């Protein structure tokens, strides 16, 4: 596999004026929503999905991907300057980042976060180049039983890696699976849980679900808190160059964070939040003097910020090679591809190399843009933080509504959006993360389809799942992952890992 020839194809496809423009739009939007607390990449991508109908597939993916990793850059700014995470993946950055800012080292913290992210982004891109082609080649051998076992592994890993209670994560995935059952059954043509509503024959729509549960719920949650003025610590451009000591203290953390993030990004159920938390834990563990953490340790910024960006890039690998979305954002990207008539999976690389390598190349270009957007232009983003939310929310809500309605011109979808918003709010109040539910909703129907198809192929013999080597290996892996939760010793480790 000639990586350089492929990358040349990619840069050729990504470096057209139109695609550069959309990469820039994505990166600026991503930074914007990253900086602003209260709106994250999931609702943003969901809201923008309908806009991408009119674009060509590569431009639309380049833009949506830019929003995702752009948010990883922007999120750190708010964490450091306001002590309020702009993004969930920047929560840990608050701990030491804001302390640094209080000590007058805001510039160093911002610069290390941005440069660490840039390094991690480049490495993440190389990771994709190295791992995607062999994985895609493997995926071409996948039959129905293998896909079923892959989904099983994906869902089980999602449970193990989910934040908080295992029981709640399992419950959320099961609810997602149940929502996924709604609609016409592929094998028998029978309609399930449709209650005579013909809109439900093709299943619940994805957009009302994600926009209701993420977009609208975020607005409600934020409105619950009084709109206090946020006081940002100011940072000037000339303060942005970190000292030699800062460089010296942080480069190892950047390397560790990048490696860890790249690995955790690939795992199903993993992603940016997990990567940043894990990186912080690791930094604290390996530090000679852990008591410095929480008081402005630069490693506590460098590690997690590198990790979340590396994970943002590598989480594209399972989607682009196996057709398996590893988290809710990737499920949205899968939706964006299917809207364009592209079935995500190994076929993308062979049938649309320009698309695959173009997206990879655009990530590198986008990371370069983001360093420029985030460092010299930091003042603009800080000003945005003084924007009162009472102006912002009606606009976001309006976008949510237009986005859902325009997909199908059907007002029933509005009712679904409102219903999911209510449901999502109840979940939040109960302390349940909605992200595993979306994963269950996306993977559930695929899993059921492949399970039943395999059994039709084997004429009802379940041994088909262990007779095929790929499927058998995946099931063994799943069993090992289950052991992680069930065995008390290992369970303790997991709880410790999520302590932070």
């Amino acid at each position, binding site marked *: 596999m000639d990586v350089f020839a492929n990358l040349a194809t990619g840069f050729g496809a990504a470096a057209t004026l139109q695609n550069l423009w959309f990469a820039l739009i994505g990166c600026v939007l991503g930074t914007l929503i990253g900086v602003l607390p209260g709106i994250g990449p999931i609702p943003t991508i969901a809201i923008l999905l309908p806009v991408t109908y009119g674009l060509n597939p590569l431009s639309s993916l380049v833009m949506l991907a830019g929003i995702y990793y752009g948010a990883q850059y922007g999120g750190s700014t708010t964490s450091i300057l306001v002590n309020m995470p702009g993004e969930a993946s920047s929560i840990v950055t608050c701990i030491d980042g804001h302390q640094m800012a209080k000590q007058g080292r805001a510039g160093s913290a911002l610069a290390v976060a941005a440069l660490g992210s840039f390094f991690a982004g480049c490495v993440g891109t190389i990771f994709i180049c190295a791992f995607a082609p062999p994985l895609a080649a493997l995926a071409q051998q996948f039959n129905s039983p293998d896909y079923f076992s892959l989904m099983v592994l994906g869902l089980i890993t999602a449970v193990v890696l989910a934040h908080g209670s295992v029981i709640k994560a399992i419950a959320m995935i099961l609810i997602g699976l149940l929502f996924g059952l709604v609609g016409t059954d592929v094998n028998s043509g029978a309609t399930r849980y449709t209650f005579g509503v013909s809109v439900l*024959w093709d299943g619940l729509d994805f957009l009302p679900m994600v926009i209701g549960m993420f977009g609208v719920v975020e607005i409600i949650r934020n409105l619950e808190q009084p709109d206090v003025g946020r006081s940002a610590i100011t940072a000037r451009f000339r303060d942005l160059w970190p000292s030699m000591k800062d460089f010296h203290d942080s480069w190892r953390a950047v390397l560790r964070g990048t490696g860890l993030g790249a690995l955790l990004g690939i795992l199903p159920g993993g992603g940016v939040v997990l990567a940043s938390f894990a990186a912080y834990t690791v930094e604290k563990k390996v530090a000679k003097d852990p008591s410095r953490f929480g008081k402005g340790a630069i490693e506590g910024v460098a590690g997690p910020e590198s990790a979340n960006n590396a994970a943002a890039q590598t989480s594209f690998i399972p989607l682009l090679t196996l057709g398996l979305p590893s988290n809710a954002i990737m499920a949205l990207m899968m939706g964006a591809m299917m*809207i364009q008539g592209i079935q995500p999976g190994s076929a993308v690389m062979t049938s649309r190399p320009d698309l695959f390598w173009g997206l990879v190349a655009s990530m590198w270009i986008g990371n370069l843009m983001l360093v420029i957007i985030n460092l010299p232009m930091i003042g603009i983003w800080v000003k945005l933080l003084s924007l009162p939310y009472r102006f912002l929310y009606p606009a976001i809500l309006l976008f949510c509504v237009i986005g859902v309605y325009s997909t199908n011109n059907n007002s029933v979808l509005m009712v679904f959006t409102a219903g999911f918003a209510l449901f999502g709010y109840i979940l939040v109040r109960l302390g349940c993360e909605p992200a595993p539910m979306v994963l269950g909703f996306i993977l559930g129907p695929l899993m059921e389809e492949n399970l039943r198809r395999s059994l039709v192929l084997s004429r009802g013999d379940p041994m088909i799942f262990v007779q095929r080597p790929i499927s058998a290996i995946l099931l063994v892996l799943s069993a090992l992952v289950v052991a992680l939760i069930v065995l008390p010793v290992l369970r303790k480790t997991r709880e410790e890992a999520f302590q932070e």
Partner: protein
Amino acid sequence: MRKSGWKFGRTALTMAAGLILAPVLAQAQQYPAQDIHFICAFPPGSGADVLVRYFADKVRPLTGKNIIVENRSGAGGNIAIEYVARAKPDGYTVFVHGASGVAASMSLFKKPPVDVGKTIQVVSTINRQPFMVLVDAKSPIKTLAELTAAVKPKGTKASYATAAPFGTVVGEIYKLGTGVEAVEVNYKNAIDSLNDQLSGAIDYSVHDPVYALAEQRKGDLRILAVSTAERLKANPDFPTLKELGVSDLNMMGWWAAMVPQGTPKPVADQINKWFNEVVGSDESRKFLASFGGDQLIMPPDEAQALFLKEIGNWAEYVRISKLAPAG
């Protein structure tokens, strides 16, 4: 008192009728006086959406008005069918969709939302396309007869893939005509069945022409037969099930422009003229060939007759293939 009340009521009714009729007549005279909506029953960006938007782009300059493509997807096309059936019959709502699919909806669903034969009218045909029988290109099987000879002895141990009701019907008719007893395996999309077919888990498949031609070009699959009674100009090399002695049926998908019934004849004729002009072009011939089909041009009354006949045909197909109606 009562009498004058009745009188008043009658006058009001006459006036109301006049008010309702007047704009219809006026519109008929100067059609099109406003933007026209093309209804697409598939989501934006899908293969079918591309087809609808192609015709919107080509018909637009002929009308002198704007054409807006409205996507109303869902419920196997039923949402769009119902929307069009209930739209005003003024020629401003045009349904560009598979007329065969609209005809089939009467038999594929337990409770079709509307009686399409009574509420929808075909004004212009667009194309006709077959479904295709496929085997792995690496297999030694080169003809349908060889396929039959290979899978018949396997009885119910043989398997085949389908991904649409049309594929199910053609698959069932093939089995009835040859005595093959293979078991049908359903897929959501044709492409999902590719790995299973290339690994040998599936003996053959019956799929739409867009997928079949793409996989044939890539060298993955081989096309053995098509479901139309006559060979197509777009791909004359593929034999038909009829000439191979499997079945006399002419199973074809065909696209058309449809309007709600009751649309004034001059308006319907105008739409027919636009579509015939666009469909007849060489560019459209190439475009439609990329979807695996031929241009289809006929006058409105013939098109409507074909539509009504297809409603009956599909009832028969569904009966023969024992498809369970959905819903």
